[in-house]
């Protein structure tokens, strides 16, 4: 079983950015990717909003550069699928189809996958004209006619891309005439494109075809009328769903399956971070996935450092340790510091003093259930053996030490 400081699950832009930052910080880092690195970003040619890259840079080019960047700093890669995690202990276990790994910190960057419409014919005709990836499949539709479902940025950009191949692209839009969710600049391009046609106020009801797509049934939501449109292909871009099924019961997910995190990308489990599209967030793009990755890697580095220190200075000590929780912004705890230091110095032969500044590190206080400050725990052989909370008097401290 190989051990790493940091294991990153998923090699999309979020995972790659985390890999660059972690490896550059000299943490031993492994990215486990089940398919090809680059994630969703590698499935689009139209990539023109990643800062600094706009003159014809494609998704695969951008993510390939990120991949080489991560390799350059020593990040390792492995092609495998993560199927389970054991997150309870200090060493987290990552179970893949082919093996097991351990890591001190885990960064989840499994992204999202296209949402399916769930209409009749969709599953049966997938790969037979029904597609979720324009760059993969556009070549089949040279001079043919296609339908695009969806009206966000991805849908409209991919529809524009498809006009380079198809003779006609019909976009089915659920909103009123002229209303698209896509950004203005993308809307304008679509409206100006002669190959693009719109069907407003409508949804796809069925995809028809005998072994290959032949037509779609489109329902008008205003009139209820269903019309059939002959087509050779259907491209579906109606949002995404997070890839978090394998995480159920392991950490907190929201009702849609996304992972809620703090500003430091921390999940509900210590030492486990989530970045990119898999996270509950406002904007799911390459630039935000990369930013998340950078934050998580730096937070993980700090976490590993603090926890290793804590283990060495507290948990693995043979001598008892007085663990004091204080904060520079908490008056009583500030007043207690010199008293505790004095008593500890007088008893230096019997015990060590370790102070935890809860302003900088809340995690350890949370783990020990410390809610009130100042607080002092006596730790023997890694276990809590006594406690004093509230205002600290010399006597209460001496009593605690006597109990050793």
């Amino acid at each position, binding site marked *: 079983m190989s051990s790493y400081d940091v294991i990153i699950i998923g090699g999309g832009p979020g995972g790659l950015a985390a890999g660059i930052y972690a490896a550059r910080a000299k943490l031993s880092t492994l990215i486990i990717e*089940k*398919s*090809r690195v680059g994630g969703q970003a590698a499935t689009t040619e139209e990539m023109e909003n990643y800062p600094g890259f706009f003159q014809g840079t494609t998704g695969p080019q951008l993510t390939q550069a990120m991949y080489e960047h991560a390799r350059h700093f020593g990040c390792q890669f492995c092609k495998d699928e993560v199927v389970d995690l054991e997150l309870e202990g200090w060493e987290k276990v990552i179970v893949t189809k082919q093996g097991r790994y351990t890591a001190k910190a885990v960064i989840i960057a499994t992204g999202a996958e296209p949402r399916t419409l769930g209409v009749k014919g969709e599953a049966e005709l997938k790969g037979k004209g029904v597609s*979720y*990836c324009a760059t*993969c*499949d556009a070549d*089949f539709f040279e001079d043919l006619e296609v339908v695009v479902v969806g009206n966000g940025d991805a849908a409209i950009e991919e529809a524009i891309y498809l006009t380079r191949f198809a003779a006609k692209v019909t976009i089915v839009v659920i909103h009123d005439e002229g209303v698209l969710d896509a950004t203005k600049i993308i809307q304008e391009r679509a409206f100006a494109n002669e190959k693009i046609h719109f069907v407003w106020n409508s949804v796809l009801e069925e995809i028809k075809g005998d072994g290959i*797509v032949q037509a779609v049934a489109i329902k008008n939501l205003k009139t209820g009328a269903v019309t059939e449109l002959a087509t050779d292909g259907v491209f579906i871009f109606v949002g995404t769903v997070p890839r978090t099924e394998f995480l159920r019961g392991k950490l907190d997910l929201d009702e849609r399956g996304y992972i809620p995190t703090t500003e430091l990308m921390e999940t509900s489990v210590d030492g486990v971070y989530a970045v990119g599209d898999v996270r509950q967030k406002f904007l799911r793009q390459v630039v935000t996935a990369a930013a998340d990755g950078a934050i998580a890697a730096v937070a993980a580095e700090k976490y590993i450092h603090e926890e290793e220190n804590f283990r060495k200075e507290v948990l693995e000590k043979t001598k008892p340790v007085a663990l004091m929780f204080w904060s520079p912004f908490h008056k009583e705890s500030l007043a207690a510091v010199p008293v505790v230091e004095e008593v500890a110095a007088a008893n230096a032969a019997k015990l060590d003093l370790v102070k935890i500044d809860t302003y900088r590190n809340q995690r350890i206080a949370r783990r020990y259930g410390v809610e009130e400050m100042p607080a002092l725990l006596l730790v023997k052989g890694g276990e809590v053996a006594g406690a004093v909370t509230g205002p600290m008097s010399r006597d209460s401290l001496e009593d605690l030490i006597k109990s050793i």
Partner: protein
Amino acid sequence: MLELDKENFAAEVLEAQGLVLVDFWSPKCEPCKALLPGLEELAGRYPAVKFAKLNILENRRLAIGQRVMGLPTILIYRDGEKVAELSQDFQIEDVEAKLKELSA
């Protein structure tokens, strides 16, 4: 892996005896490229199966003729008959499982 085109498709696939695996791919399809090393490895372990690939960019009509309109797609033929099909959301393990089942 054997490279297929409209000149050799009939002879190498439709008129061939035994199992033939055809990988439909295109240079623009990233998931297809991700599968390739795994397929080459499988080809080494299943010598009784003929492994072939078809670039759809150059052979679009041929692919559509086999009712393939999405990538990645893998079709497996036995004695020229299509007996298995994997499309889009599949992993290399799924390909091997199919091969095992069909060679049994």
